[in-house]
């Protein structure tokens, strides 16, 4: 299967916001070299919601981290619009993340000593064009819990705060690494709804990583990874409403 020839959905513009070519990532552990990514070619288009599917250890997180500027490719090219991320320095990558990227992680990673509102504010304070923290929390249906500390929230609620934190700065891309990984299916669906809502409302390009096949249906596109390579890319004719999903 040749992924480079893939024609993205017509709904999205032809100019990709991310363009990955021949991306590899190797980790050196002692004398061993682990090939986490073995040559990835992929474009992401503005506004689309892509689901990355793959078994544990297939390289999903590595790919997402490289896209988000948390990590650098060993070789190849990763372009965000005209900005080459591969080989960029730490300061440039920090700046890139600050301006364009929102992250959601499996374990929410909220700051326990800050309230929900403050967890959002800590990001909006350094952003150029943020929305008010309250508005971000309202978008994930948590307006009423703004003054609660993470320890006072359930897992699903914490993850929605994390989503609010990620979108409040109105990033160009939202990168979610196993956002439902630590949640039961009912709560997970709530979180996915929040993500879909944001994608629709703000048009944020969204990448969701999961090892859960059921989630694939909610994406515009599904990218499958195995052993550091893209094994398949498929379009969904119609995105499924997260509420119809079950696992």
């Amino acid at each position, binding site marked *: 299967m040749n992924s480079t020839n893939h024609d993205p959905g017509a709904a999205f513009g032809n100019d990709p916001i991310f363009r990955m070519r021949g991306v590899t990532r190797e980790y050196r552990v002692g004398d061993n070299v682990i090939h986490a990514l073995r040559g990835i070619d992929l474009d992401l288009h503005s506004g689309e919601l892509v689901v990355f599917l793959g078994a544990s250890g297939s390289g999903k*997180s590595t790919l997402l*981290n490289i896209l*988000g500027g*948390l*990590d650098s490719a060993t070789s190849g090219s990763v372009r965000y619009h005209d900005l080459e991320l591969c080989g960029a320095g*730490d*300061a440039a990558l*920090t*700046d890139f*993340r*600050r*301006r364009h*990227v*929102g*992250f959601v*992680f499996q*374990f929410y*990673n*909220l*700051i*326990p*000593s*800050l309230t929900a509102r*403050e*967890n959002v*504010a*800590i*990001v909006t*304070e*350094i*952003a150029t064009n943020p929305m008010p923290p309250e508005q971000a929390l309202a978008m994930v249906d948590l307006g009423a819990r703004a003054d609660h500390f993470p320890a006072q929230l359930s897992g699903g609620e914490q993850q929605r705060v994390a989503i609010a*934190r990620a979108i409040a*700065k109105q990033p160009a891309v939202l990168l979610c690494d196993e956002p439902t990984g630590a949640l039961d299916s009912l709560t997970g669906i709530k979180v996915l709804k929040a993500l879909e809502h944001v994608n629709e409302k703000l048009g944020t390009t969204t990448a969701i990583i999961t090892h859960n096949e059921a989630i694939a249906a909610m994406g515009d596109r599904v990218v499958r990874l195995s052993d550091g390579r893209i094994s398949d890319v498929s379009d969904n004719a119609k995105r499924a409403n997260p509420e119809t999903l079950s696992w």
Partner: protein
Amino acid sequence: MRALNRKLLRDLWNLRAQAIAIALVIAGGVATWVISLSTIESLQTSQRMFYQNYRFADVFASLERAPRSTMAPIEQIPGVRAAEGRIRTSATLTVSGFDEPVEALVTSVPESGRGELNRLYLNAGRLPQPGSDVQVVISEAFAEAHDLATGDTVAGIIRGRATRLVITGIGLSPEFVYQIRPGSLFPDHTRYAAIWMHRQSLEQAAGMEGAFNDVVLQLERGANGAAVIERLDSILERYGGTGAFGRDDHTSHSYLSEEMEQLEAMAWIVPLIFLGVAAFLLNIVVHRMVRMQRDQIAILKAFGYRNGAIGLHFTGLVLLIVLLGALPGIALGGWLGHGLASIYREFFRFPELYFHVGPAVIASAAGVTTAAALAGTWRALWQAFRLMPAEAMRPEQPGRFHRSLAERLPLVRRMDQPSRMIVRNLERQPVKAVLAITGIALAAAILVTGRFQQDTIDFMLDVQFGFAAREDLTVTFTEPTGRRALHELQSLSGVIRSEPYRAVAVELVHGHRSHKSAIQAFAADAMLHRTLDADLDPISLPASGLLLTDWLANRLNVKPGQRLEVRVLEGNRRTTEIQVAGIVREFVGASGYMRLDTLNRVLFEADSISGAFLMTETDQRRILFEQLKTRPRVATSSLRENAIASFTRTMGENIRIFSLINTLLAGVVAFGVIYNTARLALSERARELASLRVLGFRKGEIAWVLLGELVLLTLVAIPLGLWIGHGFCNLIGHAMASEFYRVPAIVHGDSYAFATLVVVVAMLISMLAIGRRIARLDLVEVLKTRE
């Protein structure tokens, strides 16, 4: 407020118990730093101001008698800016209501009023005028000791003549900042006074009309002091000059300089211990914090916070704790320093003690504290700075445990599981265990060091008055006298035994090194007053030659068997050579010792003696004093017990206050280290402990896992701390060694016991506090949190 700052404050709040413990230790370090530096500064300023404004002389000389016309050639010596010839003599005073005689040094004040040099500062009253009644200004310390005021009178005997002295003023002189009888160990303001009389009055009283017997000079800036002294000596030689000397050999000045040097040498020792401990505590707290917050740091960086911002964030936390300690530390230091300054005022008499905590002192305190805190935490801060977010998001690998080496020991193999956990944990984190032990040991060491001063003074008093000087009464003659005077003393009622002594002011010269000192000579069969070596054994004086104190031998670089040139600075001013027969280690003073007959022979002075030591019958003393006071040739007589009592009275209270403060500070250090160690262990191992609880272990059993470790660390630390403390005492002793005394590192068993007790109490308090937390350990909460 920015959310990041809010996080910082809340982190600090969560750490509050530890932060306060650390802040207290920092406060101790800052306080001792501020105390030392500002005390030094205040003494220096006060000294400089007093010397400048009241024109403290540069060169001093005394002589037998010279006509006033001799002042002309002295004024002509190149380099001399001002010269003053004056009269100085000793007197015996009787203060009503006080049985014992008081020795006084009387100095003339020129008729123009205030002298050019060594001018008097008057606290009260006015300068003495000539007239029918003899007016005097008395020294402030003496006035305070006897509650004397202007208008009061004292009876004086000057050169054998009884004179009624009317006090017209109370004052201070730059010559008597430290007012001590030459050769005494401690000042005794009750029995030693400085007084000033109008020149005319003193001329009459001392039979010195138209003459002087003492010269002081002020030099031009950049003048060659040694050359001036040489010229002055040659002028005064024929008038019985005893050798001019500079400020370095001036009693008051040299004591004051000595004291300041000691303060400077010690200024950094104690603060450094405190700050070292604080740095260590900050190290473990911040290290753990950065590790615990790995994922928080990662998320902040993922969202675009820069490395610098994160580094600053944690640095800010460290600096906040520093501030939390430094501010009260500076306040406490200022307050205690003020207290110490007023104690110094008891010994060093300045018109005003300029005490203030200057910006330089505060800046240096803030500087060293910050430096210590950053030195302790830079690795943790660097880790936070460097942390790679992608890396940090990956879960940390679990700590690797293995069966420990100690577990091979049969003793450990028989232990139950919880005890085995203690051993394993200690072995897994050896560095932390070693640091904790060091911290606790340092606390014990500070405690030992704090008690050292008291112990040492006790010891020196014991040695000096218990073994060495066992006489009840010391009698000093106005000038060397024949042996017949001894028989007269012996025949006074109440005298059981009398022993002669001779003290000669000399300059000892060896090669190009020389030192002004004294040779003391005692009878071969002396029993009352003996010289002791460092083992407190009486030294038997050699039949020929001179024994030297080790300090002096070092100074002169001379060994037994070598010969010294001895220049006598009084009487016939003979220069001779004497062989060094041996060297003695002594704690107090620095002089040469000889047998009386040998010294007399070497100096060709028949059977001269300077005074006598008396053993007396207690109930006859009063009468004896009366008899002694009227003897023209008796200059002073001092009673031993009273000297000790007066010293312990002045010093005792102050030392008690300071040792209490020291104990509190050291207690804080001990508590800070022990509590922090335990608190950290608790938070690091809460999950483990909770798991044990879930498995059915009782609270007491899991408490043992944590507290047992604490007990073990403390038990190892205590003996180590006592040993380090003894080392510190040695160090301080070395720093304090001077011509006046070399402090032996004496620590009583009591003090070791006390240090141990304080550390154990600190341990128990920490255990109690931690025990309460263990009892309240919320199992569900602990197991729910991800670590």
